[in-house]
């Protein structure tokens, strides 16, 4: 039950099945490791807080890898014989219409929309989880979902 929702959250954030598998695996390992830190309350809130942290850890790692790749690309461009190597974005999954439109939203709003949808938490819980005021979360989500609706219906 939780695996499907967490997988959906990761998949809609990344658009990549293999990567979502990895993140899901990492999530459940971290749950076992951190189970003692669960102090009761909404389990989803605790679960998706960890899921969100894992996604952010991944993004930070990706940034580091991108820097390394960029450095390597510059180096390869200086070496004519080796410049056939192509740098492509990961993820060969066919992106559905929703995935395409989600990717047009800014990253923070996209994450908020997906957190709300897959965690099934209330706005108050989401605002607490993200450490931001309730009004801010409401406003961002409203703008994001309105935009998504326009894109999907347009």
């Amino acid at each position, binding site marked *: 039950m939780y*695996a*499907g929702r967490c*997988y*959906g959250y990761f*998949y*809609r954030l990344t658009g990549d*099945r293999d990567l*979502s*598998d990895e993140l*899901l*695996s990492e999530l*459940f*390992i971290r*749950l*076992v*490791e951190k189970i003692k830190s669960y102090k009761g309350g*909404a389990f989803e809130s605790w679960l998706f807080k960890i899921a969100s942290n894992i996604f952010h850890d991944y993004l930070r790692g990706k940034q580091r890898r991108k820097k390394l790749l960029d450095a390597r690309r510059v180096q390869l461009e200086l070496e004519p014989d080796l410049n056939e190597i192509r740098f492509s974005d990961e993820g060969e999954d066919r992106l*559905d*219409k*929703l995935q395409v439109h989600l990717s047009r939203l800014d990253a923070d709003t996209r994450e908020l*929309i997906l957190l*709300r*949808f897959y965690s*099934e*938490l*209330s*706005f*108050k*819980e989401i605002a607490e989880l993200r450490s931001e005021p*309730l*009004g801010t979360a*409401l*406003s961002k*989500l*409203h703008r*994001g*979902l*309105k935009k*998504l*609706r326009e894109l*999907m219906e347009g």
Partner: protein
Amino acid sequence: MREREHENLVGLFQRFLEEPAARAAHEDIEAGERWLAACPAPLPDARVVAAIKAQTAALARRRHRTAQWGRAAVATAAAIVLAWVGLFGPRSADRPGISYAAILPAAIWESDDLAADDLDIVYFTAEIRHLEATLRAVDAGEIGLGGGLRDELENELMAIEAEFWKG
């Protein structure tokens, strides 16, 4: 009870917006979420889920074992420390007003000859040695006894040994 089921979105928006705008915002959110529900994300592969389950179960077992070893190590360390304090720590006589609980009978630690420290042990040890000597003599043919006596001696020896370990 899940909080979201009782969430009044229009009411929440009305904290920040006029009622018509709050209702419109609510409608936008519902419509956006309907799109999300209409395009479900794929489910994780069953093999992936099985692999994760196996991995987490193994991890949980390992953590459980580590915790058990940890507790045993702490208990052992505590026993050693307490025994050390009992043996080499300051005596109540050295520090008047402070008394230390004896964990093990002091006699056991103060002598290499356990039997000499306890009359029961002295008695059992003597009995066992006597019976063992008798058995050896019977085996060697030094003592000529009736056929049932050897069994009787062995039974007596076993009974004494059992009594010994009962403490």
